[in-house]
């Protein structure tokens, strides 16, 4: 199906995924990631933004055995293989939560909110989770 679609348009749009929710408490983080993975086949210009509690999706050392759910955090490390390489994390969101970039399991760009605001302005399609 995705092949068909790509032949059809050829359009390249800037897709932004806004992640504002923590993992496990709700499914939004996981199902957002599923969209990103499927979306990668469409070869669009993709950026992921982690704002507010969304930064918690990227914390190192998640161990989910105790809650009986699958730890999906390693998938963020695999995004590079899908050519999803633009991951932006809110500097203010990290600071408010007592976290630094060292606490995150993948290389990201830590950016001030004011800068993120400008980057969002440049997008074509914004998906919110």
């Amino acid at each position, binding site marked *: 199906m995705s092949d068909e679609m790509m032949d059809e348009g050829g359009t390249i749009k800037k897709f932004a995924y806004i992640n*504002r*929710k*923590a*993992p*496990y*408490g*709700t499914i939004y983080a996981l199902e957002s990631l599923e969209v990103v993975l499927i979306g990668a086949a469409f070869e669009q210009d993709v950026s992921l933004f982690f704002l*507010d*509690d969304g930064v*918690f999706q990227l*914390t*190192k*050392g*998640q*161990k*989910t*055995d*105790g*809650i009986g*759910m699958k*730890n999906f*955090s390693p998938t963020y490390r695999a995004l590079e293989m899908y050519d999803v390489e633009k991951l932006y994390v809110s500097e203010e969101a990290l600071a*408010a*939560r*007592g976290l630094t970039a060292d*606490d995150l*399991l993948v290389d990201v760009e830590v950016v001030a909110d004011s800068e993120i605001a400008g980057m969002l302005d440049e997008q074509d399609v914004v998906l919110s989770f």
Partner: protein
Amino acid sequence: MLHTVNKSPFGSNSLETCLKMATSGSTVLLIEDGVYAALKDSSVAETIAQAMGTVTIAALAPDLAARGVADKVMDGIKLVDYSGFVDLVCETDKTTAWL
């Protein structure tokens, strides 16, 4: 009374309201995304530290571990597993969920 809070304190006012309603001697158990309130050095750490003067703050350890923040918990928070959660429910006269 036992109070449970399952929402992140950074996105919701559930913890704030719970702490207003928790009278002296009661226990507040952080579960699910509510466990993020246990983080040291966060913007709500001071609120939690103050609350500890009158109420017991507990957190569900499996939820902390799942979220990769088990080693970032501030001092003075009582850690429990599901079995300890059950004990808290039984030891107190009733449980109120702050959703």
